[in-house]
């Protein structure tokens, strides 16, 4: 069953297209990582999901309900956490939790999360550290055990210990059947938590696949050094990332053999070939036109 379906989502601000035709589907129980450089359209897409802003065209359904016309019903099932959680400075954690409890009008069990995160609910939000603010944000987002969890860079600025707690909570929610949509800049976090990822660039999706499939795409890092200065033509599948007087570094897509044969014509001093890391692969997506 598809929990989140986005169809040809477009959002324009005047003549600027912030999101330009995003389409994707997320299965129930899946953890979906939403990646892209700053300004690519991640936050705009998330704001459309939550009906903070309205699409220029296209549609979003969450658990079969339209995110705009059935926004209230959708939000009953959704928990949302931003990386930059905004709180009422003069309220305590308990004030925030009580308000959300009243607005949701359902039984929320924040006490387990409060204990687990070792959070002091009596402190005013303006006196909380950024980590503790994020803990409160997590409690507010997860206490009602949502079926869909939407996170916008949830671990920005958190220490590794708290980051791990966030991953643990998300994986536990996943085990209970929750669907998670998470934007992130941290590739290790995506690798750790996500089943599939979507990469957005300039407002459009450039790749949607599983982590393993993306990693298995043949991308190599090649470093060659020569005994004398050379000018080499390496072909279209090669992206040169660094050049020196007697050396060259490049990323190679696809078959590595043609490049090795070409390099064989030169007086090589050293040749290193390694499979590119996930980070290199994402950088390749970000770079390519």
């Amino acid at each position, binding site marked *: 069953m598809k929990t989140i379906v986005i169809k040809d989502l477009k959002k324009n601000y005047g003549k600027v297209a912030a999101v330009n035709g995003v389409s994707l589907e997320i299965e129930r129980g899946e953890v979906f990582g939403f990646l892209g450089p700053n300004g690519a359209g991640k936050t705009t897409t998330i*704001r459309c999901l*939550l*009906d*903070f*802003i*309205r699409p220029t065209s296209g549609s979003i359904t969450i658990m079969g309900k339209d995110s705009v016309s059935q*926004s*209230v*019903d959708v*939000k*009953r099932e*959704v928990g*949302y956490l*931003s990386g*930059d959680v*905004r*709180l*009422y*400075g*003069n309220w305590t954690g308990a004030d*925030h939790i009580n*308000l*959300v409890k*009243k*607005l*949701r*009008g359902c039984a929320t069990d924040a006490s387990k999360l409060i204990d687990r995160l070792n959070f002091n609910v009596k402190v005013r939000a303006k006196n909380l550290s950024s980590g503790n603010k994020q803990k409160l944000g997590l409690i*507010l987002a997860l206490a009602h055990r949502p079926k869909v969890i939407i996170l916008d860079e949830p671990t920005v600025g958190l220490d590794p210990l708290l980051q791990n707690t966030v991953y643990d909570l998300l994986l536990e929610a996943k085990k209970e059947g929750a669907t998670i949509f998470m934007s992130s800049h941290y590739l290790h976090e995506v690798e750790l938590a996500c089943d599939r990822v979507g990469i957005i660039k300039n407002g459009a999706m450039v790749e949607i696949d599983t982590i393993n499939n993306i990693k298995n795409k043949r991308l190599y890092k090649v470093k060659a050094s020569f005994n004398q200065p050379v000018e080499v033509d390496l072909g279209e599948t090669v992206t040169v990332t660094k050049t020196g007087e007697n050396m060259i570094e490049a990323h190679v897509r696809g078959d590595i053999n043609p490049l090795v044969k070409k390099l064989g014509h030169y007086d090589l001093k050293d040749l290193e070939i390694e499979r590119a890391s996930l980070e290199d692969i994402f950088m390749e997506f970000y770079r390519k036109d």
Partner: protein
Amino acid sequence: MVAIFWRTIKDRLTSLIIFVVIGAFLVWLYASMFPGIQSQGAKLQELMDAYPPELMKAFGIESPGLAFSKFENFLAMEQYSFTWPILVISLLVGWGGAAIAGEVEKGTIELLLSQPISRTKIFFGKYLSGLFALAVFVLVSVYIAVPLAAAYGFDYSLSNYHKMALVGFLFGWSILSLAMFASTLFAEKGRVYFVSISIILGMYVLNLVANLKDNFGDLKYFSFFHYFDANAALMDNRVDSLTLLVFGSTIILFTALGGLCFAKRDIST
């Protein structure tokens, strides 16, 4: 909606109490001054007669001699025509600005918007809290005059205070509707304050010009200050039907526009 209503009241309770105390204190101040002023009435009237009648009219003092004959007249001219509107405007423009634009500015609106509650309920939760604050302020700052008049031994007519409370409440409600509407348009409360105060000041100037220059007399119909006639309410026990019509229309128009704009607008914090 009820949760947002009470939470907003709680957040702004200190501000409300301060305004109510100032409103009540000023009435007490005028009550304590009135016997002395009344005894000097003849001299003061002589002084006021020296001013051009147009100038006195422009500032809502059409019959200076009357100001010193009754406590209600004195209050109408000194308190409810001048300091009281300033207090109401400050209270409600502040309330309206913080309600939506203030939440967008701080980013806390995201917490509300991510909950299963419609934008209409958020808007009216905030709006009704402002109306509640206005009601409390009007009740205390108008009706406090009654026990004070009794305590100081002044004559008073309760029905005149009912009229004053009615016209004051409608005036304040119109200000709140205007500020709430502005609040749904902007993402910074400073802009709401600027726009609302500019409009209100503009209306004040229109009324002033209309009273000073007969050629521009019709401009007064574009000003809340023409319809908010404390002298008519408190001195003559009268509220014109045009006042009810204009304030009523303003309230309905700006409330509907505010609710609609908030429901339709994009909110990016």
